């Protein structure tokens, strides 16, 4: 990819970031909601951990932090409720995006990067700050952990994006992909470790779920934040995320090619 192409994707990301700035009130409402559920989930964990010191290697402080980090990541990784591509296909606006000399996948990936960057600043960090004020969180102990966390979070966004993008693309065939998206949201909520850490899953299920792409959307970045992974484990976890990111992006590109072979735009 040459420099002008990179510039284009940067400009796309920038505009999506700017676009989000228009929704200040909505973001504030979302922030309050995320913090409210962060409070409830952290409180539940504290009660659950009262009788046992650690569960699956998590202390009560770890669990509280896990709850707040997952709340902070909700809109950054955007695990559910994303219909932007589906909407353009349903309304037919997709024809504008397809009649441009850029990669359709790259176009949406860049926009999602801009969206995620916005939510890191205006949702994720404020939610963590509120968690710190209300409960006191367990923060990474060294700058290196922050670097690893940033890498893991970036990969989490890419994996999540490619997954959402694929689900949205089904609209090319079904004309309304909201049903399958809702079903997928329920699955992801559970398998990503959002509801509870995958490490708390029963033995027979845990290994498999940890290898699935969904673990890379929440569980792995949270574990990096909590310094549960280091050395080879850390490299393996990031490698797994990278593997799924590449695999999903390739799949997405294949589906884009198939889909654009059969664009049936709604409304003629």
């Amino acid at each position, binding site marked *: 990819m040459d420099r002008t192409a990179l510039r284009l994707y940067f*400009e796309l990301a920038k505009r999506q970031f700017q676009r989000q700035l228009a929704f200040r009130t909505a973001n504030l409402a979302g922030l309050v909601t995320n913090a409210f559920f962060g409070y409830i989930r952290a409180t539940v964990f504290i009660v659950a951990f009262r009788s046992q010191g650690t569960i699956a290697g998590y202390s009560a402080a770890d669990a509280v932090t896990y709850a707040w980090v997952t709340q902070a990541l909700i809109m950054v990784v955007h695990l559910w409720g994303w219909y932007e591509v589906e909407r353009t296909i349903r*309304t037919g606006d997709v024809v504008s995006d397809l009649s441009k000399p850029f990669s359709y996948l790259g176009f949406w990936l860049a926009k999602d990067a801009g969206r995620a960057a916005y939510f890191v600043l205006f949702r994720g960090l404020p939610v963590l700050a509120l968690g710190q004020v209300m409960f006191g969180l367990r923060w990474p102990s060294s700058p290196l952990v922050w670097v690893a966390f940033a890498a893991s979070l970036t990969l989490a966004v890419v994996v999540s994006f490619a997954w959402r993008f694929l689900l949205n693309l089904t609209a090319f065939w079904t004309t309304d992909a909201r049903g399958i998206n809702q079903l997928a949201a329920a699955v992801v909520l559970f398998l990503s470790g959002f509801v509870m850490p995958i490490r708390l899953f029963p033995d027979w299920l845990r290994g498999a779920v940890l290898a699935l792409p969904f673990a890379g959307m929440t569980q792995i970045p949270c574990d990096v934040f909590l310094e549960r992974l280091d050395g080879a484990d850390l490299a393996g976890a990031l490698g797994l995320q990278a593997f799924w990111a590449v695999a999903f992006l390739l799949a997405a590109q294949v589906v884009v090619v198939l889909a*654009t072979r059969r*664009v*049936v735009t709604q409304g003629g």
Partner: protein
Amino acid sequence: MALIEVENLHKTFRVARHHRGALGAIRSLVDRQYFDVHAVDGISFSIERGEMLGCLGPNGAGKSTTIKMLTGILVPSSGRIEVLGFEPYRRRKDVVRHIGVVFGQRTQLWWDLPLIESLDLLRYVYRVPAGRYEENLHAFRRLLDLDPFLNSPVRQLSLGQRMRGDLAAALLHDPSVLYLDEPTIGLDVVAKHRMRDFLRTLNRERGVTVLLTTHDMADVEQLCARLLIIDHGKLIYDGSLEAIRDRFGTERTLVVDLDEQNGAVNGPLDVPHAREIRADGPRRWLSFNRADTTAAELIAHVAARYRLRDLTIEEPEIEAIIRRIYEDSSGISSQTL
């Protein structure tokens, strides 16, 4: 070589046939039957550089489908398309660099951002050199009078303003061809007029080839030297507007006001090669076919038999002619006129 060449183009969609009723809906899940819709059914035409064409046709005739194949976002079922020497669907990126598209009922502008942000982005999308971009932006700001709303979010623009923004967006990269899908739809009289002025200027001064689809006959009458009429996926007319009048608008009407000072004329007027189709006191409408007689001959006949105060000749309205063509073609859709 022509700028755009289309030869025996077909596009067939496979559509599921649904069974009726609630039980039918369930039955459709397991027992699905398909039928083919021939949206575009063997169209051929070619367009030279600098032409301005209007494409007419009733809703669902295949106009938009044809435009989508020309831009490369839809793959033809069969037939050949070449735009600037490329097959659009194989070389989508190469083709779209040289074309601009405006779909009248959609927008490519970023809804939540100031208009200028959408325009600036296109500089990177099409890799327009900075100097050229500034020149074009300056020109379109003037021609389309964009300045009053250049910094307003697109969501706040009126439809007319948004269309002007969309036009600028489609043209900043100096496309050779501009496709406009119903560009004047929903616009008020003033906005339509401005839009047409702009398109004329664009075609004349920048040599942009324009292909527009429309339901508004005035668009075609005022802009297009050449007219394509598509119906049921077939090209049923390709030629000038005057020729279509000559060919299909052969029925003209002579309106006469009789001088009835010396007593009213009772019953319909009796003149050869014409028949009275309407009477309102002394005013009579005589329909005649230009194949049977000329206006001059008819006037001479009428004046010889009746005393006249005044007369006018009504040309058939182009809209009425087109309506007749649509109606004819729906009866004989398999036959090319």
